[in-house]
């Protein structure tokens, strides 16, 4: 009696396993790439990139200008979390010594040492966050933008350990109560997922430049296709000396700083 019950359970377990694997096989059989049309207004590029003209940035009409940051926070429903270690940031200011910790000599001109440097996701060509993600929730789109699927992310935060730029934020708590005014054009996030700057991919789809670029009255943020020699970004890089954050790591950042 005992052995037959055992065998029954064993066979039952195997059957259950077999049946559940059918579902998986079916899911694989179904997986075809979705067919949809791009918006005809959309702007496209081989690789989107940004050049930040720090001189122009510092010559803003207002002292401590934060137009780009405010525009981004509004566009993407970024919460204002009161606890510093739980903050969510897409674009923010850092000092030179923090943005470029391995390039400072401490003898730079005072302006460079004291004035703010905008930091955001570098949209690396060789993005470590994409490499480590166990579910492909963070991925590269066809235009070189590192994107997030908030519905697939399991919140393991491996991408945060991998990002050498501290550009990723985790929703340690429910962000919604901390959003001042909700922008219905962009989804809010749930707690438990990672997020970061996506170069306003949702605006590019409608032919608009990123919110920060649009908001900058000094025209300090130059946005364009890095693979197009006639783009604004390429022209700016050809005419001025630029640096990137931690270039020695081989991530090939797509955000340049015109010094």
């Amino acid at each position, binding site marked *: 009696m005992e052995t037959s019950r055992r065998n029954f359970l064993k066979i039952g377990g195997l059957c259950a396993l077999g049946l559940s694997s059918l579902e998986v096989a079916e899911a694989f059989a179904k997986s075809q790439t979705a067919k949809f049309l791009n918006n005809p207004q959309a702007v496209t590029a081989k690789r989107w990139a940004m050049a930040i003209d720090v001189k122009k940035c510092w010559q803003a009409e207002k002292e401590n200008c934060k137009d780009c940051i405010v525009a981004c926070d509004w566009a993407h429903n970024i919460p204002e979390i009161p606890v510093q*270690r739980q903050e969510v940031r897409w674009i923010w200011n850092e000092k030179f010594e923090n943005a470029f910790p391995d390039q400072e000599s401490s003898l730079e001109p005072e302006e460079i040492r004291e004035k703010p440097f905008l930091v955001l996701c570098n949209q690396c060509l060789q993005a470590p966050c994409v490499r*480590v993600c166990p*579910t492909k929730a963070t991925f590269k789109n066809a235009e070189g933008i590192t994107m997030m699927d908030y519905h697939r992310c399991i919140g*393991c935060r491996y991408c945060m*350990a991998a990002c*050498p730029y501290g550009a990723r934020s985790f929703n340690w708590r429910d962000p919604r109560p901390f959003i001042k005014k909700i922008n219905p054009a962009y989804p809010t996030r749930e*707690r438990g997922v*990672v997020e970061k700057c996506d170069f306003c991919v949702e605006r590019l789809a409608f032919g608009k430049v990123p919110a920060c670029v649009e908001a900058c009255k000094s025209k300090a943020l130059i946005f364009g296709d890095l693979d197009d020699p006639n783009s604004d970004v390429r022209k700016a890089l050809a005419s001025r000396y630029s640096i990137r954050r931690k270039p020695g790591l081989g991530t090939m950042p797509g955000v340049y700083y015109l010094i």
Partner: protein
Amino acid sequence: MLERALSGSAAYKRLLGGLLILMGLGLAAYITQWEHGLMITGMGRDVSWGLYIAQFTFLVGVAASAVMVVLPYYIHDVKVFGRITVLGEFLAIASVIMCIMFVLIDLGKPMRVFNVFLYPAPNSMLFWDVLVLNGYLLLNIFIGWNVLEAERKGTHYPKWVKPLIYISIPWAVSIHTVTAFLIAGLPGREFWLTAIMAARFLASAFCSGPALLILLALIVRKYTNFDPGKEAIDKLLTIVTYAMLVSVFFVILEFFTAFYSNIPGHMETFKYLFVGVDGKHALVPFMWLFVILAVAGVALLLHPNIRKDENLLVAACCCVFFSMWLDKGVGLIIGGFIPNPFGQIRQYAPTVPELMITIGVWATGFFILTVLYKIAVSVKEEVRG
């Protein structure tokens, strides 16, 4: 065989009861985390992995160490290990279950964990770690159970178990190698970016795991009628001694590379861990305790009387186990995040609920271990009759 876990002495039941209380407290804290999210922990945007992942890393080592009894017994025919291989395999089962729990409780969206299988990402080391850990768990369950059952019936275990045993040996190495690769290949985390990470993991695993196994064997001998045998413990002790010496050697190698090269990124975390930077030194006491315990452990292991004096043996094993826990379960993971990518020192300290959850998972592991050992020991007592 499971029914053997249901009956036992009063001490056995008290132990399980105590562990259940700790598990309940951990569960209560976890319900809070489920309700409010990981905001109840001390982790943040700078130190984004904390105690949970650090325990996971350490316990993968304890799990992998089962191979240190399995390999000599099945490959080199070291007969004295025959009586304790099942103890090693059951320790591996309990450890891997703790590992899986520590990863699950660290997730922001645990209900989505099966996305790892739905959208497999072979470029992610975490994907491979999930595969090898679960595989190792299954291997040890199948092997341990079948071998024990055969022992109970006085027969030889089924033939199909043998290939699984051989597979389990490189598999044990793989779980710790992949876990080391998890952190050893990240640009910008210089503290982790070292080619000997996997080797260091294995060395520390092969001293901390067998040290724990010795302690467990002594406990089993004291409270039951099953004697794992002095020779088996002596053999394990030899393994612990060599692995501990190699572990300490590897840590010294890390210091040499960091400080002789004088590269700031490689030195900064060591400075933070051992002397503190900018007046911030939360982990300094832990790291010096690690040094003291490691040195004491080595001294005790090399003491000529260690094979005669059991108090020395217990002290040595405790020193080894806790020093390796401090190194891997505290310093290694948390240290990797300090300084942060902006060169700032942002410290981390676990919160009370985070500690309760951590203790709850450890208690769960020891509960499973106690039950499994109870079954194994009952079978062995019965067979010897």
